[in-house]
């Protein structure tokens, strides 16, 4: 107990170091007085008595030091004192301290926030067991060579028997309508499974069970639900297993529910075994996933499936495997790599800044350290002091970084495209924070400790005398750092400007039709539908048109945003040319008015274009240009592989160019003359389209109760989705560019300030000898201007070199865009010059005579 009691007392004295000081002084004074009394009584003079008293006590200060050592923890007390000293130093030069803290915070926090989002959106490992073992099998024709394609059922069966795969399964998706008791008819993406997909992935249902071997073999009518569908359509009912549902009218039983974010493909709503008929069809539409056996390299798996595919096709087709993770992110890998590079560059910038700022302070303090050494401070003690200062700085930067990072992450998540998986779980990436903190803090500590490491070889005079010489040498190093910073910032800012221009271009695009206030309702009549589709379409249009708030309504097989569709071979009657192909677009008569496509020639369809009348067609401008060679279309007749007889062209409409894509030759035909099993009801609202959704759905439900109406959305939303990746990349790139700009500005300011500090005396002499203020200002700013120009030039070269990697993200703007290449360097140079002038003005404001006296 006494030792614990003593420990606590000592701790208390660390916190309150002055608590006993007064009492101690008083006690020692009393002790001396008693000694003096004694010596005087022995007959010594007053002065002699005082001297002997001092000797007997062994020195007041020494006694006090011994007392302090015993009553407190010396090292802890030193630490406390150093920390307070560090804070005092920071308050003496708040700008430099703030700049260093900010650089650390950016390096640690903001960078981590941006990286976390990139990582989360684009780089998350697949949510399956041992994802590195999973591969996807591709096939392609050898001669003629064709693009990578999916796999047929018979190929899958052959691949499954090799020993390179422990497990293999195929899956193909299609859209169907799900019905059931207490369920609104709903579109669902069905994944049809061949082989044991779930055990191949190592992802089993969270509720219920997976397909049994027998169920897979017999194509039993059983389904596994995705977590999202279970929540949205079944109210997260835990007793959902065993429930009967209908899929396009056929009954099926729910046997399991997957966990959130599990299952493959990610957009599947439910899984069911591939039916016998689908196996018979042997369509090339299976995405085949294999789990390679232990110690089998992908190259061997590729060779094996390639051999099998060639054997099956008499050498016409080959096959190979690719890492599943990589195939799921290929579409965005260019953007991913660009942004990762940007994150690395930002971190480099932050480290460079910390090094420059802490280094500047170290140079300023070489004299102080020399003095301390001369006064008897041990090297260890000085190291401890500098280390404490670095840690205080880093802690401030780290805390600020975490705050900034969390705040930025929330902002970024709000900006992100809707499809961030497991959004609720997203949090700052600990590893990224760790790496950022480690790099910046190590940089800061290493640079900060340099003067202490030099101390051993220093003598007082050399340390103080050489300060200015070393400052010049150091500042050359710092200039290179700042030049590099400018170059990096130019590269990043140029990228951001390019992406911004691309985005502006996308927003200002002419889609060819007018997407405002357009609402589309996907219509899937499905196999269960037995009535007259044409009659149903007429009733749906009539029902929608008579609703208040709706200006027009039409039915079409494809939306005007979908250029790709059903292709048909056509031949123009009386022309010798070989047949061409066009996209077949069945539409109702009101379609062109509803979506806002301009009729440039002839007439639109009307109610008289009925099945029993002569076939009519309308072509688009691309058709006239590419197939008719620009000659007049109206009156021409043509045949098509997808319908019988000949059709007369009665009109020409303008092209539809969603997202500035070029339209293809298209053949519009009346839905009345060509039956379709589904499509879209398109309505144009008088005001906000979202506000009429409930009344529209109610009206359509009364017309056709069995119709699934869940895919009702604004047409403009589809256009926005197509530029979501560009928009998000732009936002992230702008974020990095902003950080780079901030760091480069801090760097330039820091460079100028320390340059000025090193040349303070020289400037003062110049001013004292009558140099004008503007001359002196120029003397300071000139080297900065040179660095800015050199860095900017280097940056432009870098931006040109990085251009190709960015081009895939750009639309309507070239990577070598002159404006973008000019904006960033000019802006940075301007910022840099302002920073330099601000720093220089501080010196010039001082009195030169005072500078010379004190400097």
């Amino acid at each position, binding site marked *: 107990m*006494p030792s614990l*009691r003593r420990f606590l007392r000592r701790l208390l004295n660390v916190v309150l170091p002055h608590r006993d000081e007064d*009492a101690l002084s008083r*006690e020692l004074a009393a*002790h001396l007085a008693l000694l003096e009394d*004694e010596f005087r009584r022995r007959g010594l003079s007053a002065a002699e008595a005082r001297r002997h008293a001092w000797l*007997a*006590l062994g020195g007041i200060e*020494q006694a006090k030091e*011994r007392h302090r050592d015993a009553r407190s923890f010396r090292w802890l007390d030193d630490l406390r004192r150093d920390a307070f000293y560090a804070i005092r130093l920071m308050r003496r030069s708040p700008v430099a301290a703030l700049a260093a803290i900010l650089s650390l915070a950016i390096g640690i926090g903001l960078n981590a926030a941006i990286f976390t989002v990139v990582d989360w959106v684009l780089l998350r490992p697949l949510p399956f067991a041992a994802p590195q073992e999973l591969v996807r099998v591709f096939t392609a024709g050898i001669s003629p060579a064709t693009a990578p394609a999916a796999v047929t059922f018979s190929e899958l069966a052959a691949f499954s028997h090799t020993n390179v795969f422990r497990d293999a399964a195929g899956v193909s998706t299609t859209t169907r309508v799900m019905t059931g008791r207490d369920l609104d008819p709903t579109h669902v993406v069905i994944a049809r499974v061949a082989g044991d997909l779930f055990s191949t992935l190592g992802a089993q249902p969270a509720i219920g069970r997976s397909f049994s071997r027998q169920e897979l073999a017999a194509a039993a009518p059983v389904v596994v639900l995705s977590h999202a569908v279970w929540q949205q359509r079944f109210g997260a009912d835990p007793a959902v297993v065993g429930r009967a549902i209908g899929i396009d009218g056929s009954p099926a039983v729910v046997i399991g529910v997957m966990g959130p974010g599990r299952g493959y493909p990610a957009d599947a709503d439910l899984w069911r075994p591939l039916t016998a008929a689908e196996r018979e069809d042997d369509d090339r539409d299976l995405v085949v996933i294999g789990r390679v056996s232990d110690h089998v390299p992908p190259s061997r798996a590729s060779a094996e499936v390639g051999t099998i595919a060639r054997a099956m096709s008499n050498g016409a087709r080959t096959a190979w495997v690719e890492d599943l993770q990589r195939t799921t992110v290929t579409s965005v890998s260019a953007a991913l790599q660009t942004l990762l590079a940007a994150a690395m560059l930002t971190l480099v910038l932050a480290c460079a800044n910390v090094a420059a700022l802490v280094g500047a302070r170290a140079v300023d303090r070489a004299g102080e350290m020399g003095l301390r050494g001369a006064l008897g401070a041990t090297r260890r003690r000085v190291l401890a002091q500098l280390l404490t200062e670095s840690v205080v700085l880093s802690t401030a930067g780290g805390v600020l970084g975490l705050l900034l990072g969390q705040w930025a992450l929330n902002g970024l998540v709000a900006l992100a495209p809707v499809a961030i998986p497991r959004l609720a779980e997203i949090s700052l990436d600990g590893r990224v924070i760790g790496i950022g903190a480690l790099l910046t803090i190590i940089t800061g500590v290493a640079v900060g400790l340099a003067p202490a490491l030099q101390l051993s070889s220093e003598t007082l005079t050399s340390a103080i005398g050489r300060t200015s010489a070393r400052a010049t040498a150091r500042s050359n190093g710092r200039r290179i750092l700042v030049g590099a910073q400018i170059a990096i910032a130019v590269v990043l800012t140029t990228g951001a400007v390019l992406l911004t221009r691309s985005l502006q271009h996308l927003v200002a695009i002419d889609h060819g039709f007018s997407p405002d206030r357009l609402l589309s309702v996907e219509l899937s009549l499905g196999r269960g539908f037995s009535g007259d589709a044409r009659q149903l379409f007429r009733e749906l249009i009539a029902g929608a048109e008579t609703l208040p708030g709706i200006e027009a309504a039409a039915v079409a097989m494809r939306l005007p945003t979908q250029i790709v569709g059903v292709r048909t071979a056509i031949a123009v009657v009386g022309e010798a040319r070989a047949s061409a192909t066009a996209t077949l677009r069945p539409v109702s008569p009101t379609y062109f008015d509803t979506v806002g496509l301009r009729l440039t020639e002839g007439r639109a369809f009307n109610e008289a274009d009925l099945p029993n009348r002569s076939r009519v067609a309308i072509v688009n401008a691309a058709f006239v240009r590419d197939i008719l060679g620009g000659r007049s279309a109206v009156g021409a007749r043509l045949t098509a592989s997808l319908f019988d007889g000949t059709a007369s062209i009665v009109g020409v409409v303008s092209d539809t160019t969603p997202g500035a894509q070029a339209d293809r030759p298209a053949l519009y035909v009346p839905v009345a003359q060509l039956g379709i099993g589904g499509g879209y009801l398109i309505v144009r609202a008088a005001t906000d389209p979202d506000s009429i959704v409930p009344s529209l759905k109610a009206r359509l439900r009364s017309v056709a109760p069995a119709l699934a109406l869940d895919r009702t959305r604004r047409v403009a939303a589809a256009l926005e989705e197509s530029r979501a990746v560009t928009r998000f990349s732009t936002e992230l790139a702008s974020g990095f560019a902003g950080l780079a700009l901030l760091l480069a500005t801090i760097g330039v300011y820091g460079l100028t300030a320390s340059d000025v500090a090193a040349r303070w005396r020289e400037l003062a002499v110049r001013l004292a000898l009558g140099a004008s203020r503007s001359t002196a200002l120029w003397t300071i700013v000139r080297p900065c201007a040179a660095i800015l120009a050199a860095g900017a030039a280097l940056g432009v070269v870098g931006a040109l070199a990085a251009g190709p990697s960015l081009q895939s993200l750009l639309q309507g703007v070239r990577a070598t865009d002159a404006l973008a290449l000019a904006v960033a360097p000019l802006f940075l140079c301007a910022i840099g010059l302002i920073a330099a002038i601000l720093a220089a003005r501080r010196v010039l404001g001082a009195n030169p005579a005072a500078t010379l006296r004190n400097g």
Partner: protein
Amino acid sequence: MPPSGDKSRVELLPGTLELIVLRTLTTMGPQHAYGIAARVEQVAEPPFRLNQGTLYPALVRLEQKGWIKGSWRITESNREARYYAITRAGTRALAGEIDRWQRSAGLINRLLTNEGD
């Protein structure tokens, strides 16, 4: 330790000073630091001069352990001084400390005697 030119000054073995202070306070009652130092120098045989500043760490340690307690009083010569008195915990601890010292001193003595043969 600062170097001292005074050869007659003796540094005590570490830890012994605390024992000496406790013992002095038991036999003489409450004493100030000078009084303790004077007593030590007086009983020493042959006489030696203590570096009186070295008393202070020992006093702090004892006080922090709760074995002695200091209070300000006026001396006979009408000067103020801080008097230390042994506490009850200190009295209890002294017995153990003495026992510990005698055992280690006895061991050292025996070793030195045997070595001397």
